[in-house]
């Protein structure tokens, strides 16, 4: 059976709602009109493929990649690792995973972030890697700090790492955020709260993974990611080149 049918239609019910009064910007920026439903086409079933050649040796090490290995970022050292699979539970190998995050004090290295926590001279906040043949990836970084943001009167983001994942087709493209097991701010966060299905929201919480931690060095957190899959079929016309 081939895996070359159309993309399995996106189940919008397990994603965040488009508008949520608890997250005010969604009321200004979320589209009003219903999305136009269609079956995926070759455009969404193909996508950019990247060689491992674009990835530098330090790209997935946020502790040292900003200083090119000269000195280390301040903060709690962590390893974030996991596996990328699709809805059919097939590994997604050789796909680009990019992350970005605030420093240990909760400050981003960005011209528009004016939070009073200081910048860390040794921390840039970006990392990237490719999944291996079996869909596994890993990053070494520091635990990002919680930070305040303008929404309701006293709003704080839980500690989080932003993730961008490609998959093998443009229709699989996904950006999400990873949270940390045990963080009390998760339950109060209106951005997490835009996901109305509790089990789905829990999918974004990485588990403390003691076994994969390294004594006297770092704690590990495991964060697996599921991308959309394609219908498995032998009956539908296979588009040329797919």
């Amino acid at each position, binding site marked *: 059976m081939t895996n070359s049918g159309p993309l399995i239609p996106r189940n919008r019910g397990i994603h965040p709602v488009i508008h949520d009064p608890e997250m005010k910007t969604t009321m200004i*920026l*979320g*589209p009003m*009109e219903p999305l136009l439903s269609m079956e995926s086409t070759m455009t969404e079933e193909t996508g950019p493929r990247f060689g491992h050649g674009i990835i530098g040796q330090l790209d997935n090490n946020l502790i040292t990649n900003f200083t090119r290995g000269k000195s280390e970022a301040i903060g709690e050292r962590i390893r974030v690792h996991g596996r990328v699979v699709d809805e059919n539970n097939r590994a997604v190998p050789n796909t680009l995973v990019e992350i970005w995050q605030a420093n240990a004090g909760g400050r981003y290295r960005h011209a528009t972030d004016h939070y009073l926590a200081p910048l860390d001279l040794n921390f840039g906040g970006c990392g990237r890697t490719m999944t291996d043949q079996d869909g596994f990836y890993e990053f070494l970084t520091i635990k990002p700090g919680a930070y305040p943001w303008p929404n309701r009167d006293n709003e704080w983001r839980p500690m989080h790492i932003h993730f961008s994942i490609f998959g093998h087709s443009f229709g699989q493209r996904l950006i999400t955020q990873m949270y940390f097991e045990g963080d009390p701010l998760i339950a109060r966060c209106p951005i997490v709260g835009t996901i109305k299905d509790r089990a789905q929201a829990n999918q974004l919480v990485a588990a403390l993974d003691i076994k994969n931690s390294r004594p006297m060095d770092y704690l590990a957190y495991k964060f697996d990611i599921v991308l959309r899959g394609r219908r498995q079929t032998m009956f539908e016309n296979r588009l040329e*080149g797919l």
Partner: protein
Amino acid sequence: MAQSIVNLFETPSQTAGPYVQIGCTPNFAGINGVYPEDFGLRAIEDGAQGEIITIRGRVYDKFDEPMFDPMIESWQADAAGRFPGQPDADPKVNGFCRFPLDVKTAEYTLKTVKPGRTPSRSGGFHAPHIALWIVARGNNIGLNTRIYFEDEQEHNKVDPVLHRVKPVKRLDTLLARKVGEHEYHFDIRLRGEQETVFLDM
């Protein structure tokens, strides 16, 4: 009881937030030296076959204010309608491009080749188009849309996606306007009167 079907649920999306540039275009965001260059800078390399075009436009919010912090990505076929990776595809066409918005003008610029028609599963063709994926703060899940071309009327008329846009006047939101020789204009409106048609596949 029936046999069980093992299906996983897709990981839920979360907003890319206002700092998506840090992760996706760090050099543009002023974080230099980590990566030699930002990824996805060029849709085409020198020597790509076909008509080389430039598309410019902005992303607007509900109040018609241009936004500076969204990220747009594009994906398209070459001039013969072949996607990178397919047999005989133009090796000079990367197909993918990622463009931040200019810090002063909020305008994006996509220099690329005008794509050819692409085959549909039912045996017909899709009119020439470029797929876009847009993420922005205030958007909890990336938005898919397409740039079609106003000067491809014959093909647009029979395009299976354009065909289904209702009301018909919203079609305009998917058509790049020809503003000069090899130059087009295409704005994206996230919300409001002229809201862009977004796709769900």
